[in-house]
């Protein structure tokens, strides 16, 4: 029995600050104002602006995960197998480790100073190329495209960090075997390398999805809360019960956690598929 006392503080901490808070949200989403059991909160998730906020979050997470995944993969390829010299490669990898943690208010300011209305890039395009992206093209940093552009700043590096070791794990023998059998470079990638990398590629994209889906600080700092995402809605609900139903807020949180859990399960399943080939 005494042996178990050693891990007691940790479990008590997890109970107090992880399990009780999250299960109280869980229970709250099945209660009405009077504390009685109900499923109404789950049905009420269908009232505007909740479905729109979930769709908004899913759209931006899918978009930044797909595009971030593809371009991140190309970057990872360039620095591992693509012939970028070593003296550029290691600072770049270090930079990725740093940039994947760069988020929140400072990230938002960095993008406002570059492609905000008075940003450096915005003014450059206006002065030298006569492109008025805000006035003539309807571009705005504070909407879907602008927020995606900002999210890429931590999505690309995360993809590079996870894919670079996987790309390095491709054995040279596989490529040589293909070449001996007369395969072209294209055939090697399409029939051998990509199928091996596919689970890890998809798994990492799921990771990127979850990364963007749970993001609050960056979106809030950039748009001042004027974009309809789940995290922003939950934030407004915590501030002042904008849904006029505390328990509906808990149900929204539950919906988010369900989506994040599905992501984590999908990710760890795909991760196990990868490990069959690449250790």
């Amino acid at each position: 029995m005494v042996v178990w006392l050693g891990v007691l503080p940790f479990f008590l901490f997890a109970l107090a600050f992880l399990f009780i808070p999250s299960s109280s949200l869980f229970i709250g989403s099945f209660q009405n104002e009077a504390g009685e059991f109900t499923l109404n909160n789950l049905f009420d998730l269908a009232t505007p602006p909740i479905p729109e906020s979930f769709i908004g979050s899913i759209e931006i997470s899918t978009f930044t995960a797909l595009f971030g995944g593809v371009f991140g993969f190309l970057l990872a390829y360039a620095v591992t197998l693509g012939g970028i010299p070593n003296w550029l490669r290691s600072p770049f990898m270090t930079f990725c480790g740093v940039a994947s943690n760069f988020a929140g208010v400072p990230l938002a300011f960095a993008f406002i100073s570059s492609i905000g209305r008075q940003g450096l890039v915005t003014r450059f395009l206006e002065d030298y190329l006569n492109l008025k992206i805000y006035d003539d093209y309807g571009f705005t940093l504070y909407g879907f495209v602008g927020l995606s552009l900002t999210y890429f700043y931590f999505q690309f590096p995360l993809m590079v960090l996870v894919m670079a070791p996987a790309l390095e794990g491709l054995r040279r023998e596989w490529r040589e075997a293909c070449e001996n059998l007369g395969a072209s470079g294209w055939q090697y990638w399409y029939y051998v390398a990509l199928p091996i990398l596919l689970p890890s590629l998809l798994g990492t994209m799921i990771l990127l999805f979850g990364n963007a889906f749970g993001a609050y600080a960056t979106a809030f700092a950039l748009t001042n809360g004027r974009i309809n995402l789940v995290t922003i809605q939950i934030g407004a609900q915590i501030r002042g019960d904008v849904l006029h139903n505390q328990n509906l807020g808990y149900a929204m949180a539950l919906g988010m956690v369900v989506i994040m859990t599905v992501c984590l399960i999908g990710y760890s399943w795909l991760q196990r598929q990868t490990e069959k080939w690449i250790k």
Partner: protein
Amino acid sequence: MKRFSFWSWLWFILGVLYFFIPLYSTLDFSLRAKRGEIGFLAYTNAFSDPRFVDSFLYSNVMAVLTILISFLLVVPTAYWVNLRLPQLRSAIEFITLMPFVIPAIILVFGLIKTYSRPFEIFGLELFPALTSTSTSSVALLVAGYVVLSLPYVYRSVDNGLRAMDVRTLTEAAESLGANGFTILWSVIFPNLRTALFSGALLTFAIVVGELTLATFLGLPAFGPYLALLGNHKAYEPSALTIVSLALTWGAMGLIQLLTRGTAQTSGTH
């Protein structure tokens, strides 16, 4: 593999441009507070605001508290699990992965729901609402930060423990008459230096600019201050962004040097 590859260079250069331009723009912006001149006016303005000094110090104190508490919590637990309770490994790993499923905004929502009223079990009041005083709110904030940094701190400590022979070291210390505390303090901690240092720097980087938890718990930390400043000032926020970037990026760069590029990512987006 040493041939020149057009596509690789193209992707690489595009990537570098994308990463570089926002940083350069911020720096450029922060130096132009005085019209037509390059200077440090925005920096001196930002530094002379007493709320900057207060909130920045406040966040640094929070970071130190978070680091201390998460070490006290994680190191003995991970050590004990490695040594005596390997059957608990997957349960603990599950717990340390939970912050990935529960983003900061959900965590703070749950904390507020649970602790913004007196905590009762079967009608018996154990303690009053934690959000009612600023001292107990600080406790909630630090607890939340410990949760957010749990995956990284646990992983780096666990990797550090696996890299040494915990059992042999413990037995050697025991046969020399050391008690449990001495073993942890003089044998295990020193051997975990690198792991702890990288865990500490990462926690520091997560905590100092953190917005979500601090905002909703209503505490005067640096993240909320910076966000507020962005609403009514143009140049000073860029200057502070450069400062906080230099600090956190310095910290992260150090980790990368120490751990030689093993990937770690945070959950405070």
